[in-house]
Every structure is written in C-alpha cells, then in structure tokens.
C-alpha cells in the first residue's frame, strides 16, 4: 500500500504527543501500520471505524502499545509494524486477547510504501517469525461477515486456571450451594482443577451450567459439562438435552434428562490436536435452546 502524506502527518502528530523517544517511534510506526491496513480495507470495501480504535484514542495510545483497527461488526484487527532487517513481527502481550487476528506490516525506510506481509489469528508469544505467517487470503476469510451470527463472547477456559473468569461464571458454592454434589475426593481447591457455574434461564426454568476442568500431566485440559436444576426439590425437566458441539457446530456429545434427574452431565472430553480449540455447549428444552461458547488454548 502506498503511504500518502496525510498518513505521515498523522503519525507525526501522534508521535509528538509522546514524551519519550522510544515511545514516539513506537506510536509513529504503529500509526502508519494501522493506516495502511485501513486503506487496504477501504479498497476491499470492508467497513472500519477508526474512532472506535484504541490506536486512535490519545489516552490509550499513551498507556499501551496498541495498533488496533476496529472492523465494523467483527471486532479489532491488530496491525503490527515490522522493522527493517528483522524477520519477525513484535506483538506485545497487552494485545493478545480480543483480536480477530494480527497483520504484519513492513514499512520501508523511505516511508513510501507499507507492505502487508501476512496474517496470524492468534498470538501467544511476543515475537512471531515472519515465516509462520499466513497469506492475506486467510485474513480475508476472517473478515467475512458471518450471516446472522452475533459477536459471541467466548469464555477462555485456559485462563480459568489463572483465576480469570468471564462475567456470569461464579464459584459452584456460590451458585449452587447445597444443591451441588461433588465427587467424593477433592473437595479442596486444587491448582490443576477448576469448576465454575453459570445461571441459565430456559423456558422459565432456572438452571446452572457447570464446567469442570482439570489438567493432566501433559497440560491437556479435560472438560466435563453438567446441568443442574437450581430450584431445590425440583428435578430437571424430562427431555432436557445437554450437547457439546465442535468448532464446526457438529455435536459430538449429548446427554438427556430422564424423569427425575437432579443433574445431567457429559463424559469428560479434551482437544489435543490444535493449539486453539473452539467448542460450544448447547442446552435444549423443546423449541428453545441456550448456547455458551468456549475456547481452550493448549
């Protein structure tokens, strides 16, 4: 992408706000990278909104190494500059979450051209080798607006082991109290085990979805889902189904409530193939259903 004069002027203006030379340089290059990707999106008729981007927010720019571009209806795309004579793209830890993905942008030393080198969906290290990047075709696939699918907040189960829980996920004791029947062993907290529960309303029934996680010796996360009735003395409605769907939406586990079940559960499952796995839990009662989306990073 050619770098127009207005981009340079904006980058200078943003850099001038900074008090330290290193930070000036950081902001300057970040701004050019975001500009280039924004121009590219404009060519491809992909809607963007700079006003919602942190990189265009003076205060956040000051306190964070951020180069995001808000893609309307999809979320944030991070645009990271690649410096001369390096073969990696630097992705700071504070942007590893809540991103559609990361585009590496090489800015030539005469500041005339910005090359979009490649794309990666996830970042878990600060330095990503350029050889590991995928083509822009992959980026374009990610920017495809899904048809009628709301932006899901995917709970990140790997972080549950670090005590970081998304809103709505409470401790089992808090939500279920005496309604919960834990397995006989392990009533104490254990670092490689996490259990959390979330209130679910389905056809005016109060239910709790429980996720029970543990890590085996090889750090693989093993998961079991359970659904409990939250109304004491009332069992689960007959026919209530608990399903687990893989990332393509295909169900691979299912459990159904009989006439007097206080809870139902799935078998324990795990994903070991990809570094990042998406799955969904779906609870169905008659015509209605509720889904919760999750991601596990191995």
């Amino acid at each position, binding site marked *: *992408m*050619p*770098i*127009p*004069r*207005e981009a*340079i*002027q904006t*980058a*200078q203006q943003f*850099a*001038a*706000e*900074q*008090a*330290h*030379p*290193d*930070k*000036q*340089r950081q902001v*300057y290059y970040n701004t050019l990278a975001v500009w280039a990707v924004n*121009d590219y999106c*404009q*060519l*491809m*008729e*992909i809607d963007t909104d700079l006003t919602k981007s*942190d990189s265009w*927010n*003076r*205060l*956040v720019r*000051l*306190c*964070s*190494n951020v180069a995001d571009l808000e893609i309307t209806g999809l979320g944030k795309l991070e645009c990271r500059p690649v410096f001369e004579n390096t073969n990696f793209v630097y992705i*700071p*830890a*504070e*942007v*590893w*979450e*809540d991103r559609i993905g990361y585009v590496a942008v090489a800015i030539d030393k*005469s*500041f*005339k*051209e910005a090359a979009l080198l490649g794309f990666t969906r996830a970042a*878990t290290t*600060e330095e990503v080798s350029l050889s590991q990047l995928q083509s*822009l*075709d992959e980026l*374009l*696939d990610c*920017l*495809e607006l899904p048809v009628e699918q709301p932006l899901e907040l995917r709970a990140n189960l790997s*972080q549950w082991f*670090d*005590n*970081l829980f998304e809103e709505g996920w409470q401790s089992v004791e808090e939500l279920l109290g005496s309604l919960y029947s834990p397995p006989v062993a392990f009533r104490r907290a254990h670092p490689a085990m996490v259990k959390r529960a979330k209130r679910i309303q389905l056809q005016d029934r109060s239910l709790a979805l429980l996720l029970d996680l543990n890590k085996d010796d090889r750090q693989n996360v093993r998961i079991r889902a359970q659904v409990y009735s939250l109304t004491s003395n009332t069992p689960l409605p007959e026919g209530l189904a608990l399903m687990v769907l893989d990332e393509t939406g295909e169900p691979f586990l299912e459990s159904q409530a009989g006439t007097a079940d206080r809870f139902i559960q799935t078998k324990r499952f795990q994903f070991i193939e990809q570094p990042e796995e998406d799955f969904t839990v779906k609870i169905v009662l008659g015509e209605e259903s509720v889904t919760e989306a999750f991601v596990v990073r191995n």
Partner: protein
Amino acid sequence: MRSDEFFNELIEKICQYPRGSTQRRKHMNRLMQNIIQSGKLWRENTSYYEDALQQTWLYLCRNLCEADTAEEPYNPQKSSVFTWLNSYLRWRLRDFRNQEQQKSTPPADPRLDPLGNLPDPRDRNIPPMLEEIRYWIESDPQGELRNTHIRGRQDLTCQVLMLRRLPPETGWRELEAEYGCSMSTLANFYQRQCLPRLRKRGESMGYF
C-alpha cells in the same frame, strides 16, 4: 511477464463474483499484486506520488466491474488495464502538480527525516496529559485502581501495573520475572480490567 490475456481473464473472473464477497476480494488482491509486479505502472519520485497512487487503487477497485465513480467500468476492448490505470494516475498526478505550483512555496515532503523533526521531548516540559494521568493513577481518589487486582494477588493491582506501563514502560517479561506471574495473565488483566478504567477516565475528562 504476464500477458494482457492473463490480466483480462483474471478481471473477468473477479467480476463474476458478487461485490463484497470474499472470493472477489481475494482475486482483487491477486490482481493488484500482479499489477505491481509487472512494473508497468507509471512511477515518479514526487512527494505526492503515493497520494495519487492510492487514489488510483481506489479507482481500480470501484470501477473495474461496476462504474462507481467513472462514467463506465473498465472495458478490455478499449485498452489494456495498464493504459486505463496509468491514464487515471497521470491525471491525478497532474492535479497534484498544479496544486503545488499554485503555492508560492511548495510544502516540504513530510517524509524527509520524519522523526527527526519532532521536538526532543527532553527539551520541553513533559506533556500535561501524561502527568495528569500519572497523578490520577497515584492518587486514585475512589480507590478503584488499588482495589482491582488479579485474583489471588492483592499486590498486583491496576494501580501498580498502570504506573509501570506508563512511558518509559517496563516490559512484560521484566514484570513477569519481578512478580512471578505469567506475562499473559498480567497483560490480559491489564487489557481487560485496567484499560477500560482508563478509557472511562478519558471520557469523563472529555479527552475525546
């Protein structure tokens, strides 16, 4: 060296896909790459060249199959795609050149030593915004920053992390080693718990 036929076939393919479709975008991408690689686009070394080139790319994308801004879309019977684009490019360059000539002193190319032109921050007072934010974090009037911390680590509060990440920022690796808490946990907490509070502060201060 790709032939005119190659380009026309690729263009025909692009136009078969609906506008805004991923397939069209991917093929448009390929077309642009091939145009660049051919070296047949007019080049010149003026400060406004890139401005004109960006406008030309936009012209390509908007008028290749449907005429958005042109009178008619690209017509391979009339000319090669290069002739079509170069003609537009050179018109834009002419416009810019005329604009420059009308000014008594043409503006300097902002690319010449762009970072060098910035005032050395050490020569002047630290900008007020940084100091204001530092003050806000340190004083933390409602105690919100002090009381928001990583679960299980009362010492790792937003207040502590935000101060360390103000320029000159302490690296995440260093913070990881110092506090014995993984970089991803620290950064995730910062991104999800501290930055939103910063944004809220900015809004209430009328910074945007």
